[in-house]
């Protein structure tokens, strides 16, 4: 583009800036709200509707018993996680915010914005009237992001730094789970099934995605295999899983799965639920990945073959990187729905966020706070899911999907 500009000056006329509108606001109104009588009517009707809705909501929000949220905040967020062990959760949060900060420092771009957001949010939260301890913990999160950021910023000069960073990211998942869950013998085990709250939803979703991702890729490759037996089996698996509701599979996990395992293997319900959701999501993941694979032109396979790459190299070096890049939005969408699906764990008596909120509603003291609690849960999920899809759109843009 720069080149274009420069050369264009060869021919006389200078480029002009585009003509400017006189009264942009009026013009905007006319173009966007009152371009025809039908549009004008719509505008009026919807304005009234919005105003009435907002007034009603505002009135209710002012009179609502919001104290139910702070009073039960710990319960909602981490369930009945023992207070004396809560430092373990903070530690994992520190670990992750440190990693995010470090990535922000060493890579910039989107990660930088995310780490900024974490730092700012933690400062803002610390202003809220939590207990002194909690405020300290929260501020610590901002601090660990900052430390990570500085380290990343200066560390990126070292050639190995980014590799180490990726290694740490990969390690962070098992470390988090071990810290939160405990290791028998070393750290007291805190059972997830009845004591994790929102954290259970989050960890469930992350584990689900981390495990279903590789399985999904294999299934997708299997479904596109040129060997009929493999294709058939993978297709059957995917279609059967996608043909039934998740809730029936959870039902099966809670009641029947044990019957399929050897008599000395009796995994905990939470583990069975995770296995189920992984098996379920893998089928959907496979379809997403397959979508990406289908979008890769045949020419890419041919070119890879023609320079002598074998099947394995073609797949790992040429096809997968492109296919996965294409399906980032679909995968994030998948992650979002997986996160939302963890609310179904309540169906098999696992105390996730929604289930816990219902036991709060059952508490005599908090009778009638049903709206407040559901609004809170709705907002929590909405914020999480919306920001994820926002981030995915940003990643998509920064990778230049669909450009070329």
């Amino acid at each position, binding site marked *: 583009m720069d080149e274009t500009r420069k050369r264009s000056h060869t021919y006389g006329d200078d480029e002009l800036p585009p003509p400017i509108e006189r009264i942009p606001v009026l013009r905007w109104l006319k173009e966007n709200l009152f371009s025809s009588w039908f549009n004008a009517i719509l505008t009026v009707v919807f304005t009234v509707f919005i105003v009435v809705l907002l007034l009603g909501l505002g009135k209710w929000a002012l009179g609502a018993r919001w104290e139910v949220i702070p009073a039960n905040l710990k319960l909602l967020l981490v369930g009945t996680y023992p207070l004396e062990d809560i430092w373990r959760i903070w530690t994992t949060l520190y670990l992750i915010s440190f990693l995010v900060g470090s990535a922000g420092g060493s890579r910039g771009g989107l990660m930088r914005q995310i780490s900024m957001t974490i730092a700012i949010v933690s400062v803002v939260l610390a202003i809220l009237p939590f207990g002194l301890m909690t405020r300290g913990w929260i501020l610590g999160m901002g601090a660990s992001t900052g430390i990570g950021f500085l380290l990343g910023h200066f560390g990126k000069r070292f050639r190995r730094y980014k590799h180490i960073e990726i290694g740490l990211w990969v390690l962070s998942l098992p470390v988090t789970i071990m810290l939160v869950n405990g290791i028998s013998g070393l750290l007291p085990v805190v059972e997830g099934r009845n004591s994790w709250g929102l954290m259970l939803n989050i960890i469930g979703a992350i584990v689900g995605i981390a495990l279903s991702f590789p399985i999904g890729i294999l299934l997708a490759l299997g479904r596109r295999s040129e060997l009929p037996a493999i294709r058939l089996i993978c297709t059957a698996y995917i279609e059967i899983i996608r043909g039934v509701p998740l809730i029936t599979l959870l039902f099966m996990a809670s009641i029947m799965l044990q019957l399929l395992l050897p008599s000395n293997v009796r995994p905990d319900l939470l583990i069975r639920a995770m296995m189920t959701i992984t098996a379920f999501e893998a089928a959907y993941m496979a379809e997403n990945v397959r979508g990406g694979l289908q979008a890769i032109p045949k020419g890419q396979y041919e070119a890879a073959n023609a*320079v002598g790459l074998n099947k394995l190299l073609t797949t790992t070096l040429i096809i997968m990187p492109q296919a996965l890049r294409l399906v980032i939005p679909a995968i994030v969408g998948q992650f979002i729905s997986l996160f939302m699906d963890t609310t179904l764990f309540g169906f098999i008596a696992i105390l996730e966020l929604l289930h816990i909120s219902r036991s709060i509603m059952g508490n005599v003291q908090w009778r009638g706070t049903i709206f407040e609690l559901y609004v809170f849960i709705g907002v929590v999920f909405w914020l999480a899911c919306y920001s994820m899809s926002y981030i995915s759109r940003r990643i998509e843009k920064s990778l230049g999907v669909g450009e070329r």
Partner: protein
Amino acid sequence: MSTNNNEGIIILRDVHKWYGDFHVLRGVSFSMHTGEVLVICGPSGSGKSTCIRTINRLEDHQKGQIIVDGIELTNDLRNIEAIRRDVGMVFQQFNLFPHLTVLQNVSLAPFWVLKMKKSKAEEIALQLLERVGIPDQADKYPGQLSGGQQQRVAIARALAMSPKIMLFDEPTSALDPEMIKEVLDVMKELARSGMTMIVVTHEMGFAREVADRIIFFDYGQIVEENTPEDFFHNPQHERTKLFLSQILDY
């Protein structure tokens, strides 16, 4: 209709191929010497692409014999690998790897297939980019290049495996008119340097100037095989004449 030279670097003997019921190649035989430049032309759908794609086994043939550099193309895994190393190919749609830089595109195969050291592979890649005239684009991504530049990268990528034979499948037909010349120039240089080449193209100017022999294809068969002079000024077949009139009219 075809030479039956056993000494050829490429030998096709009565090659047949079907897509389902559709008989694409209907007994193709020809052979080539080292250093020869062969141009294949013919109407669309006549099987030109299919024919040259059987030579590095991007497609398999169902009957007949294809021998490349003394190796017969069969279902033997090792033969196929060996032949792909010997034969470079340049496609109409470039088919560069869009997620890799130009340098990575070119050095990928030497690194992974020939197991060269990375520095060595990149050195070779840079030399080749120089040869095709775009050493300064090494760190860009294909999407940032013009069509002509992309096709030159594709040529460099094929050359990086030091092939004995290069196949070109309509290398200029997806290019803007202005860019065709830059690619043809590179190919001309390559031909002069003694590379054995098969080129499917409609660029008759190029054929006239560079080809040692021209093959005219129709309905999966070789209709005419001739030297450029005779091909253009003294075509043997009616079909060839008709084709030439259409192509050269404007």
